[in-house]
C-alpha cells in the first residue's frame, strides 16, 4: 500500500541535510508551511539555499529560519518588506547571499524545472539590471532573456486537503507556489489541514497529483480510509 503520510512534521523533514536547496511555498504568510519550517529549525540543518517569493515576514516561518542563521542563500523576488527585519539584518551583515528574480521568471523557472526543460527565453527583465550578463535573443521582433530552471532537493508546501497517495487541493490564494514547487523538487513534503481517505477528493478537483508529492503531514486531523 502506498502511504505517504508522515507521522509528524519532524519525521517528514528528518533527512533534510546541511547545504540542501529547499523551495518553500507561500506568498507572504499565505501558503507558508509553518509547521514544517518549525520542524526544520528544530532539525538544525544549516547552510540552506531557500527558494521563496519573499524573505520572511515577522517572527515566524521563513523569518524564524533566517533568524536562526540557517540560510546561506535566498532566491526570491521580493525580499524587502515592512516586516522582513530578520532578512534585512542578515543581508546587511553579508551573511545571506541574495539572488533576485522577477516573480514571473521565478515562477516560470520553477515550472520549467518540473517540466524538464533545459532553459527558457523569457520576456521579463530585458534591458534591466536583473538581466545583466545574461544571454538575450531577438525572436519574432522581440527581445528575450535566457533563464535556467530552478530545481531543489526539497519543497516544503502547504495545501488544504490531501490523501495517502499525495493528491492535494489548496485553499484560496494560499495555492500560489505550491503546485509548481511540488513539481520541481526531488522530495516534496506537503503540510495539509487534513488527510482524507483515498477517493474523498474528486478526481476533477485535485490540483497537485500525488506523483509530485513524496510525503504528507496533517496539522489537523487524519481520516484513515477503510481500505
Amino acid at each position, binding site marked *: 500500500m502506498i502511504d505517504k503520510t508522515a507521522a509528524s512534521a519532524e519525521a517528514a523533514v528528518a533527512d533534510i541535510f546541511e547545504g540542501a536547496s529547499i523551495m518553500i511555498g507561500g506568498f507572504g*504568510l*499565505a501558503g507558508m508551511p509553518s509547521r514544517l519550517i518549525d520542524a526544520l529549525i528544530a532539525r538544525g540543518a544549516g547552510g540552506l539555499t531557500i527558494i521563496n517569493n519573499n524573505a520572511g515576514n515577522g517572527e515566524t516561518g521563513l523569518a524564524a529560519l533566517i533568524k536562526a542563521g540557517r540560510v546561506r542563500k535566498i532566491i526570491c523576488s521580493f*525580499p524587502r*518588506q515592512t516586516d522582513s527585519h530578520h532578512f534585512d539584518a542578515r543581508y546587511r551583515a553579508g551573511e545571506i547571499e541574495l539572488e533576485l528574480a522577477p*516573480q514571473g521568471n521565478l515562477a516560470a523557472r520553477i515550472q520549467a524545472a518540473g517540466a524538464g526543460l533545459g532553459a527558457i527565453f523569457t520576456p521579463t527583465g530585458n534591458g534591466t539590471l536583473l538581466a545583466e550578463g545574461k544571454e538575450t535573443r531577438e525572436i519574432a521582433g522581440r*527581445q528575450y532573456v535566457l533563464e535556467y530552471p530552478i530545481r531543489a532537493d526539497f519543497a516544503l508546501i502547504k495545501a488544504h486537503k490531501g490523501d495517502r497517495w499525495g493528491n492535494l487541493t489548496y485553499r484560496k490564494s494560499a*495555492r500560489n*507556489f505550491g503546485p509548481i514547487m511540488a513539481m520541481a523538487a526531488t522530495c516534496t513534503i506537503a503540510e495539509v489541514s487534513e488527510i482524507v481517505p483515498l477517493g474523498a477528493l474528486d478526481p476533477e478537483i485535485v490540483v497537485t497529483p500525488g506523483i509530485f508529492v513524496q510525503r504528507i503531514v496533517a496539522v489537523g486531523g487524519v481520516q484513515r480510509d477503510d481500505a
Partner: protein
Amino acid sequence: MSRLSREDMARRVAQDIPEGAYVNLGIGLPTLVANYLPRDREILLQSENGLLGMGPAPPKGQEDGDLINAGKQPVTLLTGGCYFHQADSFAMMRGGHIDICVLGAFQVSTRGDLANWHTGEPDAIPAVGGAMDLAIGAKQTFVMMELLTKQGASKLVETCTFPLTGLACVSRIYTDVAVFALGAGGARVVEIAGGLSFEALADMARVPLIDARASLRETGA
C-alpha cells in the same frame, strides 16, 4: 492652477478602463483606482498571487489569511472569480492576457521606458516582485504618478537615471497635472488638468512635449 489629488488621479484612470477589461493594479497609488471603477461596468481585477475577480477588503473580523492581495492585505473574491497557481498567474501577464496594468513609477521616459523598482541607492535592498512582468506583459501599461518629485524634478524624463523596470512599455501616464501618451514619437499631451497652459506644463516637465489634445479629442483616442 489646481493639481489633482491622489483620489482625483485614481478617478481619472478609472474612467479609461472599459467594461470587461482584465486589470492589474500595482501596489500603492494604483490600488486607489479600484475605489473609482464605475459600478455599471464589470471589470475584473487580477492579483499576481493568484486571484481573478478580486473584490474589496472584507468587513473587520472577516479577514481570511489565505485570501490576500499582492500587497498582502486581506481582500475578497467576487462571485465568478477564481484561484490559480503562480505560473498561470504570470502567464496571464506575460502571455499578454491582461488588458491594462496600472503601476507607480520613479521615472518614465518619453519613449515609455519605466523605472519603478529600485532607487539605485547602493545600500538599498532590492525587491522587484511582479513589476517587471506586468510592465512588459500587459497589453497596455499605465503609470500613475505625480509629475514632479518632492524636490521639484520632473519624473517624465528623456532617459531614466534610475534602474529600469522595462523598455518602451508604458503607453500612458496619469499625473496630477496632465495625461500623457507615450511612444516612439515621444510624449504627447492628451489632457491638462485645471487651468494650466501647455507652455507651463512643458516648463514643469522639462522634456519635449507634443500637444495632442485636439487630435486625440477628434479621434476619440
